[in-house]
């Protein structure tokens, strides 16, 4: 204790010394700060910060931040940025100089840099939220960048998974479409209809390549939420759009950046569950007479002779003394190594950016890991003042492995009184499915799924200014992705079926080539106070997909099992092409930037629809009123900004529709033959009436800025009506097929979003930045085209007037005190036995109505501390771990601690759990539905710049970073993790140390 104290004290002293030493350094002053747009508060990248009277200076980085040393108190700095009014500031005693630049040009979108508009015109009337670069550059370990989006944007709900490198589930403003969630697995959507559209530098991508994207390459992510801003994506935009833009160079001195981060992830646990210890487990086995449990085996029985009784008692006592923590035995400490390098720079008319990243994550057990290698190059050049060209290329590989079995799935089948040296594992002989393994590690490593994805993107573009008012732009993009999925089930000599005994392997390879051409032109002209923009263009996207795969039985232990060489493999092949052609136009009118109107239209043709019905039109319109610009507000000092926006848009969603679903197509490739002759059959049953889902959204917002550019905020409300919902539902079996994708009804989502960002405290040396976002979303099925309810599968249930994703479970009524049997309620409140109990809704939904995040960043001189909280309220989660362990007690599996006290044992007992032997019904049960609301301390980061003490030559910054992730979760949920469905991997705590050097 004493030594600890001593270390702590000396640490504190040295820290104080570090801070105070700077206070005495007088003559050489160093200044840093952040430059933002005065209207929106957004950081500005590439602002020139010049020492007055000289040509030397710096530019702001991707976070809008700059740092300039070697100054004196009298130095004056000039802040210059194209399209903005120049500002000057004298250093004085300050070490922190933040500047808010005011646009100098009435209509910023006319200002272009390397052919790109300085302002996104869509954000004037539409809802376009931006995620800061900082989120991606801090180096928070993320196998997939989407994990970093949680808690960043109001209305963007991200449900993370604990699997390394696995993409999260992302929803913008709720679920637009129908999906069924089963208690055992992650959300299993019947179509991909709920996913937003992801666009990487203009090209559509799928979440399967997320892991190949280097988070540090991302300069901004825009989330398009309303119906108007998504119109330009036409038939793909109804679920919202996520636009990912990667870094381009910053004109100025070449900057080299190298960063290494090391993360350690300690062994976790089962979240809210602690497992039963040996004495209780043994007593439970004795009580219940579980014949394969040691507690029963070593119980005295009538007729036992004295030596037998003695031996049993001794053995029993011995086992009581053993307490193996199986979770710990089966898990390992996870580690993440993350190395990042980049070069950015440019002169005058040329800028470039180069980066490379290597990421290596070891999960909590041997066959759970993720790796990534990614590199990117971008170059922009102004050939002359009319013509700009840009080029961006990236190549990346991600690899990841996911185990089919996790410690969490195994642990309750292993006894606390067994040890690693034991080989009997008596109670596991009744394991579900009847498959046994030599030892638990064999089972843990028995099957895994490996994925390797290569991604190549090349995007050249040309912008040409035809006249001062007319610009023409051509973009071309090619994206190639190659994925290989290998599933291996190792041979298990104790298996039951031939497949289990010999082992199996299946491999699937897919190749996707996307070509995109985008031609656009815009015309911008001011006529006095009137400003008009007309933009028009066309986009063509062509996808080619090839697939090849095989399945084989029999793995030789002599070779790497993933080779899977087997002469009797069955092979499958596929090929699929589709294309999309879109024409779009946008008209905006602005009067003195005070009144804005935007109308937008897109006409999309899709090859997946039958000829003649291929084209679908999307459109939207919006108005904005900058109230602050009115004369009557001129004297108002409360508001720096006050702007109202209203928009309406109609969009479509093509999710789930395939060409072969629209009309009969025949398969000539199957390998079946009859009496030596080929057979052909229908590919799948078809529905000629299929239509795209149609979403109409009203959105209204107010943007405000108060307290002298300290606080910016947006309050936004929306109503989204989706018609022609697509779902794969039952059709009469007399069709010869039992289910078909159909348009089945309508759904309404509505919600309110609040975003606040501001600088509550800003002094000469200290800054506190804070960002809060909060979203509320609810939905309701408004129509099922004549039906009142539709059941899908065992847990899918849609009912008019009810939210989708409602838990559909049996209503637990407790335990019959007379016989210890579980009892349930019927909808009318009567009590029935298990077999007859109907499933019902009314227990909440699996989606949280409230979601959000809170970020706080504190800067003091060279120290930065930031904290991110994420939270979600109001939804439920099915505690499948608890349900499974409790229901399997009768087979000898291990329940939670204290369970013995909570079960019915004799008539008259009033207990929460039934007599375990009577608990066999495994239909979803309200007993295991729990409130999954949570507040998570997602991330705490401390960064400190050591350069001024190290004085390394040429080095600009020498940052050390310490981070803690998933530090603590406040929740009432008693399962693995409130965010994790099924029996998955929890989001574990992790600790990161990193060095970040810029020179």
């Amino acid at each position: 204790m004493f030594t600890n104290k001593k270390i702590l004290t000396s640490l504190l002293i040295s820290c104080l010394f570090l801070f105070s030493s700077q206070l005495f350094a007088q003559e050489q002053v160093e200044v840093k700060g952040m430059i933002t747009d005065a209207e929106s508060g957004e950081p500005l990248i590439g602002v020139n910060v010049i020492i007055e009277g000289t040509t030397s200076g710096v530019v702001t980085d991707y976070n809008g931040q700059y740092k300039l040393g070697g100054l004196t108190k009298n130095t004056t700095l000039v802040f210059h940025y194209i399209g903005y009014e120049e500002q000057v500031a004298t250093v004085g005693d300050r070490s922190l100089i933040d500047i808010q630049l005011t646009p100098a040009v009435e209509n910023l979108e006319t200002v272009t840099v390397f052919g790109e508009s300085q302002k996104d015109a869509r954000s004037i009337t539409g809802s376009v939220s931006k995620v800061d670069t900082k989120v991606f550059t801090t180096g928070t370990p993320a196998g997939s960048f989407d994990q970093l989006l949680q808690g960043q944007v109001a209305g963007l709900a991200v449900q993370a998974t604990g699997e390394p490198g696995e993409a999260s589930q992302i929803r913008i403003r709720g679920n637009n479409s129908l999906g069924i969630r089963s208690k055992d697995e992650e959300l299993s959507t019947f179509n991909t209809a709920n996913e937003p559209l992801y666009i990487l530098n203009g090209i559509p991508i799928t979440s399967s390549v997320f892991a190949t994207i280097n988070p540090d390459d991302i300069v901004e992510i825009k989330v398009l939420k309303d119906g108007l801003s998504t119109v330009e994506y036409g038939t793909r935009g109804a679920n919202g759009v996520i636009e990912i833009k990667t870094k381009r160079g910053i004109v100025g001195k070449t900057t080299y950046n190298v960063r290494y981060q090391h993360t350690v992830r300690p062994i976790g646990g089962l979240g809210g569950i602690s497992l039963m210890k040996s004495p209780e487990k043994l007593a439970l086995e004795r009580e219940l007479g579980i014949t394969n449990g040691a507690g029963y085996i070593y119980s005295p029985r009538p007729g036992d002779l004295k030596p037998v009784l003695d031996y049993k008692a001794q053995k029993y006592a011995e086992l009581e003394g053993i307490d193996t923590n199986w979770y710990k035995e089966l898990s390992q400490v996870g580690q993440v190594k993350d190395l990042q390098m980049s070069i950015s720079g440019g002169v005058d008319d040329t800028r470039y950016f180069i980066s490379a990243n290597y990421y290596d994550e070891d999960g909590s057990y041997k066959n759970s890991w993720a790796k990534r290698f990614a590199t990117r190059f971008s170059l922009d050049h102004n050939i002359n003042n009319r013509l700009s060209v840009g080029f961006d290329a990236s190549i990346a590989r991600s690899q990841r492995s996911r185990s089919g079995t996790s410690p969490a799935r195994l642990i309750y089948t292993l006894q606390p009184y067994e040890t690693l040296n034991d080989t009997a594992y008596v109670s596991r002989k009744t394991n579900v499915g009847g498959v046994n393994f030599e030892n638990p590690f064999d089972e843990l490593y028995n099957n895994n799924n490996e994925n390797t994805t290569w991604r190549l993107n090349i995007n050249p573009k040309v912008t040409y200014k035809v006249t001062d008012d007319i610009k023409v732009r051509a973009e071309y993009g090619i994206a190639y992705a190659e994925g290989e999925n290998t599933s291996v089930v190792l041979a298990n000599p104790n298996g039951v079926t031939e497949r289990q005994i010999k082992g199996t392997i299946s491999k699937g390879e897919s190749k996707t080539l996307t070509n995109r051409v985008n031609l656009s032109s815009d015309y911008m002209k001011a006529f006095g106070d009137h400003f008009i923009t007309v933009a028009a263009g066309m986009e063509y996207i062509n996808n080619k997909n090839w697939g090849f795969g095989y399945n084989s039985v029999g793995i030789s232990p002599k070779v790497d099992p993933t080779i899977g060489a087997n002469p009797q493999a069955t092979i499958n092949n596929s090929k699929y092409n589709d294309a999309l052609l879109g024409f779009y136009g946008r008209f905006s009118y602005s009067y003195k930037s005070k009144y804005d109107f935007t109308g937008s239209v897109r006409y999309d043709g899709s090859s997946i629809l039958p000829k003649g019905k291929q084209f679908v039109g999307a459109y939207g319109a919006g108005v904005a009123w900058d109230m602050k610009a009115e004369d009557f507000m001129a004297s108002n000092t409360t508001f720096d900004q006050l702007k109202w926006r209203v928009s309406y848009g109609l969009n479509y969603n093509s999710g789930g529709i395939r060409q072969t679903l629209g009309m009969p197509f025949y398969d000539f490739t199957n390998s079946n033959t009859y009496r030596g002759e080929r057979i052909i059959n229908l590919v799948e049953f078809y529905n000629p009436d299929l239509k795209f889902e149609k979403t109409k959204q009203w959105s209204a917002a107010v943007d405000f800025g108060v307290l002298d550019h300290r606080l910016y905020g947006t309050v936004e409300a929306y109503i989204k009506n989706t018609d022609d919902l697509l779902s794969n539902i039952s059709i009469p079996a007399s069709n010869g097929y039992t289910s078909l994708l159909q348009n089945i009804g309508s759904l309404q989502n509505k919600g309110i979003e609040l975003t606040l960002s501001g600088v509550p405290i800003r002094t000469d040396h200290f800054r506190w930045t804070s960002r809060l976002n909060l979203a509320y979303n609810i939905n309701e099925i408004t129509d099922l085209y004549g039906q009142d309810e539709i059941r899908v599968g065992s847990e899918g249930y849609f009912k008019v007037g009810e939210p989708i994703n409602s838990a559909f479970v049996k209503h637990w009524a407790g335990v019959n005190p007379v016989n210890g049997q579980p009892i349930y309620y019927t909808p009318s409140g009567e009590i029935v036995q298990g077999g007859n109990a109907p499933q019902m809704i009314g227990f909440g939904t699996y989606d949280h109505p409230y979601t959000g995040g809170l970020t706080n960043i504190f800067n003091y001189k060279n120290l930065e501390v930031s904290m991110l909280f994420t939270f979600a309220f109001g939804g439920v989660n099915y505690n499948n771990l608890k349900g499974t362990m409790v229901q399997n007690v009768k087979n000898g599996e291990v329940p939670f601690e204290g369970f013995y006290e909570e079960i019915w044992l004799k008539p008259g007992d009033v207990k929460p759990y039934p007599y375990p032997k009577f608990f066999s019904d495994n239909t979803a049960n309200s007993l295991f539905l729990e409130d999954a609301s949570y507040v998570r301390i997602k991330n705490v980061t401390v960064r400190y710049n050591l350069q001024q003490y190290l004085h390394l030559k040429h080095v600009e910054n020498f940052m050390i970073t310490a981070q803690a992730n998933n530090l603590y979760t406040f929740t009432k949920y008693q399962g693995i993790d409130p965010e994790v469905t099924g029996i998955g991997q929890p989001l574990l705590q992790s600790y990161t140390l990193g060095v970040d050097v810029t020179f």
Partner: protein
Amino acid sequence: MSLSKPTNLMKNLILFIFFTLTLSACSLIDIDPDNVVSSDKAFDDVIYYQQALNKVYYDLTVPTNNISATDYATDDFSNVIEGYAQMNYFIYLWDYQARPQPTLWNQQYTLIAATNVIIDNYDVVPANNDKELQQKNEIYAQAEALRAWFFFNLTEIYAPHYDGTNGSELAIPLKLKLDREYLPQSTLKEVFDQIDNDLTDAETKLKNFSSSSVDAPYIFGLDAVRALKARIALYKGDYDQARDYSSYFINTDLLDSADYWMLWGDQYGTKNQEVIFMTHNLSDTDQGALLDYHNQYETNNVSLDRSFYNAFESSDVRKKNQYIDPTSRRPQKYLYLADDNNPNDTRMLNYKYFRTAEQYLIYAEASLKSNPEKAKDVVNKLREARGASALTSLQLSDVVAERRKELFQEGLRFYDLKRIAKELGIVVSRPNGTQLVPGDAKYTFDIPIDETNSNPYINE
């Protein structure tokens, strides 16, 4: 900022690219899939029309598509346990609501959908000459006849027995085209009229049909259509038609008892002329079929009813351990035990759906009143061939008993009980006390929830 004058070349180039792309764009999205084929292309030759028909035959080889699951509802089987094929156990208990429900409905309609592919696309298939036209018509006729057979099966299982007087009772949905439909149940009369029309048309189209003796039993040709017509006529009580159509077969020779093994164990032998229609045995290439078969009989622990077993004369070849296990009394017509003719144990899953022997018995039953002597002769001809003694007199009960002996494990007993239990006073009992009495509602299977859940016109 002053701009340099745009070069005309650049301007024209950009405009050119823009306009050509815009104009040529519409054809960019007319993508015909490479991996699958639309109806027009798929059936541009009669060869492919045949390949679509092969799909129906192929599907008929699947053991679970076999209507013999209905045997579990009859008095043939006893001692049935739940096993892995619980469905059969629930049929045994006439509990048609228990899950899993009988899959017969779905299977027969899946087969119907496959026949409707052929019927729907008749107009698509070109016929360049008379020969092709005949081929095309014969393929169409087979599809029609097969569909009629599937409708008949569905009616026997899921509708009340049709005796010609209760035509207005509801039967099954008449699924006559491939497209998705929500169909109400048609009446018994409508269904049987459809069956009659289809079979009549098929018979016409097949009148010049011929095929090699090797192929013949695998094709639902003219013989099969006649055999089916005879079967249906018998079940409807139309004895004249039953006799007329079965008379085509009563002169076909039966195997003698020494060669009887060929019927079950020698799929390719030329001596066996007893098979009118069967499917090819795919169990060598498809392990699934073997498992399904195994599940259907072995894990359900099926035994033939003891008194039925004892009713076989000891000389009767049909009682041999090759066909019924003497200790467990398990029916095993499709399981070939190693013997002198066949060195290895094997499963002969080439289902014989229509056999000459059935036609003998149809003829006998249909002419029992009009020509009892001839009826007796025909039955005795069969009995002799099977190693049983000749009957001196012939009652209806004798014919039905003979049908049971000849056709057990082939899915016909349930249909027989349904039409004749009343006349013969047959009551089937289960160990738990439940009974299937003549005219019982349990003779009509419940339409499964796979239909009723989503079909607004059919409620259970």
